[in-house]
């Protein structure tokens, strides 16, 4: 362990603001693009499913 205590860890010896803001922004961006990619895929699947189910329902009854 490079730090004596948790508060030392947070402070990072006067560089805390820099380190944590970098990690915060970066993780936010990485999580952001992951979430956007996953939800885009899911909503596209949902949209297509609705479309093809809709088409099935409009087929003339046999």
């Amino acid at each position, binding site marked *: 362990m490079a730090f004596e205590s948790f508060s030392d860890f947070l402070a990072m010896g006067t560089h805390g603001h820099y380190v944590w803001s970098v990690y915060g922004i970066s993780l936010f961006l990485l999580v952001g693009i992951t979430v956007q*990619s996953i939800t885009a895929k899911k909503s596209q699947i949902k949209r297509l*499913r609705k479309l093809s189910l809709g088409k099935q329902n409009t087929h003339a009854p046999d």
Partner: protein
Amino acid sequence: MNWIWFHKLGSPKWFFHWADRWSKLIFIFGVSLFLLGIIWGLVFAPEDYQQGNSFRIIYIHVPSAMLAQSCYLALGISGIVSLVWQMKMAPIFIKSVAPIGAVMAIIALLSGAIWGKPTWGTWWVWDARLTSVLVLFILYMGVIAIQNSFDDTRLSDKAAVVISVVGLINLPIIKYSVDWWNTLHQPATFSIIEKPSMPAEMWVPLLFCVVGLYLFTVGVTCWRMQTELLIREKRSNWIKAEVLDSGV
């Protein structure tokens, strides 16, 4: 060499199923490696005697910078593949990876700038490395912009392919010119990363972060490509089967 894998890659259907099988795994493995590396680097790596604790930013800065460059390389090669082999998947790859590369570039720039404040006393320095990542970011924005500007998919694909090939050819020229420009202006010379004697406790977590972030990128790119395929191939039967069967 067996080129079958290469041609398989060109088949949307093959790729879609491959991605279904592997992308989640790759993503989770990548994220785990990355988090492992970060936690190791944040908590356990010894403090740098010159820079103090701010050097820990390296665990974000270096992987993102490497990925920003690699993604563009992959994007450019994809453009060449599209021109030479007319592979359908290539423009889809370009469209999918560009935003990820842009995000990596932003992370690299921000982490570099914030790292710069305690290290050189200023938020921004027009040095070779940061400037070339900035130009890289603008190149990414160009690719994204041009793909969003055309309504016709074929046109936008062609445009994206052209610009990514042009960008790839220009990339070494840009890098060289920025390096040369830098030698003229000689701002604060520093080399955060070129520290040959980084002890293992410092560079092993870095390795984890780099590999982890690469795998993360592969995973997310796969999902984006699948989404793009769902949009483009929506009329095909295999997509319809996918959508109705899978509960993804």
